[in-house]
């Protein structure tokens, strides 16, 4: 083996090793959660209230709570994020100020979620007097998801070639017509996918809902958007660190983890299906 071939061999195998390390880690985590969680899962677990200080029963209120909060998050983050991305990418001049704003948005997506949680307490719970409730938590998660949504949507818009924009402008389209008919149709699949992945991430967050509305133990369903609620990630946190008999509820904690992962997976799966259908429609 000469030097060049050796380099090739080493390069290839190093990269392959990286791949397998990642794959292995994912496989171990998935196997651990599924094998231990599957025992706890049955119809009763996902359809009933927790009982007996959460040592028995199901996680229905946590499932409902997480879904409701995620819907609020989507209502805030999806239209606002997409609109903002369209403005930044299509209308705003490429000046120093826009570059600064763009950079700030990217940095915001790296701000720890606990910081958003504190911000949510100050803005929604206290200043706007919404109290600790589903609405406050959803809005806080919405704020946290916005930078993600904006960045993903912007990337999707950037991937539409300028020749589509110029082509339609040259035919006498107004700027908005050009965007609506010759840019958005090709950017929407990417925008939606990125956005939904952001929502999936929000659904699994604990810190932002910790202070803004999630409750320790509420064995009934939320009555309105102004109720406190149980949420899967927070429930999991309680079960695995705060409960009075942690080892006893360990199987329930694993079950909760599995339900949460399944929910996030479901959202991602929905994103993939949606993208597939939108792409197919576009080709026709």
């Amino acid at each position: 083996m000469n030097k060049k071939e050796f380099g090739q061999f080493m390069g290839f195998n190093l990269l392959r090793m990286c791949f397998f390390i990642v794959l292995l880690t994912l496989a171990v985590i998935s196997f651990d959660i599924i094998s231990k969680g599957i025992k706890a899962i049955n119809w009763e677990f996902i359809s009933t209230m927790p009982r007996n200080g959460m040592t028995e029963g199901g996680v229905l209120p946590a499932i409902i709570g997480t879904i409701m909060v995620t819907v609020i998050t989507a209502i805030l983050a999806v239209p606002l994020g997409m609109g903002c991305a369209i403005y930044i990418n299509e209308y705003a001049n490429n000046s120093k100020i826009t570059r600064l704003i763009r950079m700030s948005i990217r940095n915001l997506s790296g701000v720890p979620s606990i910081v958003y949680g504190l911000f949510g307490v100050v803005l929604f719970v206290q200043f706007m007097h919404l109290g600790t409730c589903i609405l406050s938590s959803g809005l806080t998660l919405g704020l946290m998801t916005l930078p993600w949504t904006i960045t993903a949507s912007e990337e999707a818009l950037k991937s539409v070639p300028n020749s589509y924009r110029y082509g339609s402008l040259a035919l006498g389209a107004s700027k908005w017509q050009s965007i609506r008919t010759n840019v958005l149709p090709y950017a929407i699949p990417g925008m939606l996918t990125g956005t939904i992945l952001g929502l999936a991430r929000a659904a699994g967050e604990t810190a932002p809902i910790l202070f803004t509305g999630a409750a320790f133990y509420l064995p009934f369903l939320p009555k309105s958007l102004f109720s406190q609620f149980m949420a899967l990630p927070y429930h999991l946190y309680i079960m695995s660190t705060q409960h009075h008999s942690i080892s006893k509820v360990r199987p329930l904690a694993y079950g909760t983890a599995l339900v949460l992962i399944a929910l996030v997976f479901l959202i991602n799966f929905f994103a993939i299906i949606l993208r597939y259908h939108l792409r197919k429609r576009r080709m026709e």
Partner: protein
Amino acid sequence: MDIKIRADKFNFFYNETMALKNISMNIFKNTVVGIIGPSGCGKSTFLRSINRMNDVIFGARHEGDILIDGENIYDKDIDVVGIRRRIGMVFQKSNPFPKSIFDNVAYGLKINGIKDRSYIAQKVEKSLQDAALWNEVKDRLSKSAFDLSGGQQQRLCIARALAVEPEVLLMDEPASALDPTATLKIEELIHELKSKYSIIIVTHNMQQAARISDYTAFFMMGELLEYDITSKVFTKPSKKITEDYITGRFG
């Protein structure tokens, strides 16, 4: 002959760089004007100034006027969108939209508010015929425009531009990426279209300029050095530098 387009002491800047210097020229109705010159001489910039496509470039500004039928297209109150509809443009790289062949040609009609389906169908057929593409695509109008060959795609873009009935057609090296057969087709097409439109075509190909244009403009370093009847520019240019460029001594 009637003047269709008139540039009057037109200067153009990209930020601080002056791309066009004091361009004054008259372009007549129903003629083909070939614009030649070395790369970066301002040919394309001038072309894009005529339908205000330079507006989309950040930091672009101009001085002087360009008039179409005596109307200043840089007037404050002018409807830029309307100007672009009246002045069609074919880009250097063919840019079909990811739609069907039919929808590509119909696009300009639809965005200009035309809803009558039978009229659109009629217009699509007519435009494709005018662009000498109809016979090749009439059986697959609903297929994606991306399935066409490079030469067909460029003719599709010409058909798309013709569909909105422009008065002037700007072509930025429309045949630069095409093989000789496809190029010949486009050249024949330009010859036919001249009866209805004024055509301004940027080209790097001297023979092409000599073949298809009635007038030839020679640009260099942002200046219009020579502009006359094509046969005169190619046989008895008034400037030595024009001759040097045409005969291939530089550029």
